[in-house]
């Protein structure tokens, strides 16, 4: 069965079940409701004044009575400093638990240590927004028994609501928590900011353990996670590497090419007509994306423009813009650097939001729907503007869907910034290895070698040209790039499907095949 992008999607896949092909960004949403049934959250009971405290993580895990075939979940707010996933998986593996589905909101290189458990049958399936490092390589090489499911941040919430992800045990790290499990990431020695992705796990998991290195006197405020969902609380010496969890601010790139791309992107945003009083804005944290904020800030100051809200993954640069009064508020589902935590704690207009409010397509209006401008990166983009942010040039999984497709579908103006080629690898090309975000959601591509407007947006092209910006046909740009780099041989794969990429509405936009080696 072919989906709307003419990509072959099997009707059914072992380990997942029936697959529904992608039909277009809004085909399912236009109906106004979700057809899939939702599962009820569990109803639990506790006796008054019963203690939830456990001596250690192992004791807490034992109390939840783990079993073969269970699904465990984690959030990835500890960024590169996370050690909790490894600790928990190791405990389960040592108990002899097999066939675990790992449903983390995302996996990073910090999770490389769990690789042996992919190979010995402890973990047999992964649901995540992204997988990187050794794990991503292993998945592409076929290490997991069942296919990886990549979802967007909004799509993950939908999957929990429908029971596609049925969490048996959620283990949620917090930088501060009290004995009842009220918890936050906004203060404490390992403060990491928003706990936006963890909220849905706390509401829907059959059992929930809060793990913290910092027990505070009752009550823990603010209550990012509330006690009525929490079964057990564990105080540990360490939830990971605090220098990587709570360290540093995100710096804006100094790479000349990224800065040039960012400068061009800011001009595009200015001339698009979207940069006006009350506009809302989101940028990614990587390379050129965040650098766009620097130039937008300058333009906003020059023209005395005041924005409405900043959304998403929040960096300390966003906090600077909030404090300067350039935006009225920040909605923070994930803090990209720890310098954000104090603002989240102290500024009433810096608001923590759960992933469902951020980006779930099936509710009465997630915040990405109200976005005016979003700036996103790309590992590859094809001549139909389809974007790959998940597989690298070797075919390994090395990225994250994140909020890419969520924000791209919601924003009035979706700008993709990337170099036209990296090293010798073409980025703008005829066909990408894996589609995560459909081209219909992308309005304009900005590279160092040219700016390309989606032909579906002629009015945007007219605005840019009226503003003195030269626009290039994306097909011409792809040809130009190929002349420079040469024609890359496509990645060789086997027929075996090792992963699927879900669009935010739950349909399948692409599959990931095992690399041939």
């Amino acid at each position, binding site marked *: 069965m072919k989906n709307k992008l003419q990509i072959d999607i099997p009707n059914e896949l072992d380990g997942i079940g029936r697959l529904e092909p992608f039909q277009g960004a809004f085909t399912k949403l236009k109906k106004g409701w979700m057809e899939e049934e939702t599962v009820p959250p569990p109803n639990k009971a506790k006796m008054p004044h019963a203690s939830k405290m456990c001596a250690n993580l192992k004791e807490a895990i034992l109390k939840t009575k783990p079993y073969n075939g269970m699904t465990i979940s984690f959030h990835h707010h500890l960024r590169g400093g996370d050690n909790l996933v490894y600790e928990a998986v190791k405990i389960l593996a040592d108990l002899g638990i097999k066939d675990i589905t790992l449903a983390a909101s995302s996996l990073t290189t910090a999770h490389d240590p769990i690789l042996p458990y992919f190979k010995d049958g402890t973990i047999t399936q992964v649901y995540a927004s992204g997988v990187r490092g050794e794990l991503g390589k292993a998945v592409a090489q076929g290490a997991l028994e069942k296919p990886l499911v990549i979802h967007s941040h909004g799509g993950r919430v939908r999957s929990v609501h429908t029971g596609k992800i049925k969490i048996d045990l959620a283990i949620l790290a917090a930088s501060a928590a009290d004995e009842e499990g009220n918890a936050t990431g906004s203060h404490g020695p390992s403060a990491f900011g928003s706990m936006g992705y963890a909220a849905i796990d706390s509401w829907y998991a059959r059992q929930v353990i809060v793990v913290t290195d910092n027990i505070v006197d009752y009550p823990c405020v603010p209550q990012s996670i509330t006690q009525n969902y929490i079964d057990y609380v564990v105080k540990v010496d360490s939830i990971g590497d605090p220098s990587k969890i709570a360290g540093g601010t995100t710096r804006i790139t100094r790479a000349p090419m990224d800065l040039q791309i960012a400068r061009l992107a800011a001009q595009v945003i200015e001339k698009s007509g979207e940069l006006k009083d009350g506009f809302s804005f989101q940028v990614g944290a990587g390379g050129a994306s965040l650098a766009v904020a620097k130039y937008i800030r300058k333009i906003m100051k020059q023209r005395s423009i005041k924005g409405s809200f900043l959304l998403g993954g929040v960096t300390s640069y966003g906090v600077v813009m909030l404090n300067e009064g350039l935006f009225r508020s920040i909605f923070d589902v994930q803090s990209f650097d720890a310098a954000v935590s104090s603002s989240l704690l102290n500024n009433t207009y810096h608001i923590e939001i759960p992933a469902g409010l951020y980006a779930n397509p099936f509710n009465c209006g997630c915040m990405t729907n109200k976005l005016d401008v979003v700036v996103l990166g790309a590992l590859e983009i094809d001549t139909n503007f389809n974007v790959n942010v998940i597989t690298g*040039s*070797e075919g390994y999984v090395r990225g994250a869907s994140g909020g890419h497709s969520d924000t791209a579908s919601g924003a009035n103006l979706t700008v993709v910034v990337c170099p036209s080629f*990296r*090293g*010798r*690898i073409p980025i703008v090309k005829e066909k990408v290895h894996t589609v995560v975000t459909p081209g219909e959601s992308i309005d304009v591509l900005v590279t160092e070698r040219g700016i390309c407007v989606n032909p579906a947006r002629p009015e945007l092209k007219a605005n840019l040209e009226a503003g003195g910006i030269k626009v290039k046909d994306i097909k011409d740009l792809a040809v130009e790039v190929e002349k*420079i*780099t*040469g024609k*890359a*041989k496509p*990645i*060789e794969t086997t027929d075996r499907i090792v992963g699927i990429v879900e669009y935010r509405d739950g349909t399948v936009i692409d599959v990931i095949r095992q690399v041939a080696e």
Partner: protein
Amino acid sequence: MNLKVKAQAGSFESSDVLIMIEPVESGSGRIIELKSIVMQQFGDDLLAQIHADLDNFDVRDVRVIVNDKGALPPTVSARLETALKRSAQVQSGTLS
């Protein structure tokens, strides 16, 4: 081109290539050791390009060690040419 000494050109930086040239006995042919971070995508192209460039300089017997970090074709040719000229000691003023 008459190769005389071991020589190298380039660097092991991203988007560059490090090329080492070693003269070998006449009649031993070309020994090309190619490593590249884009081996899968451009390995064949790189090898063909190196052979073509060696043809141009009429080098039949040589050991070439190529360590490529994603250099573009003109970079590869320039690095190879410089390494060859340093080996043949025909380019004054460059490091040998």
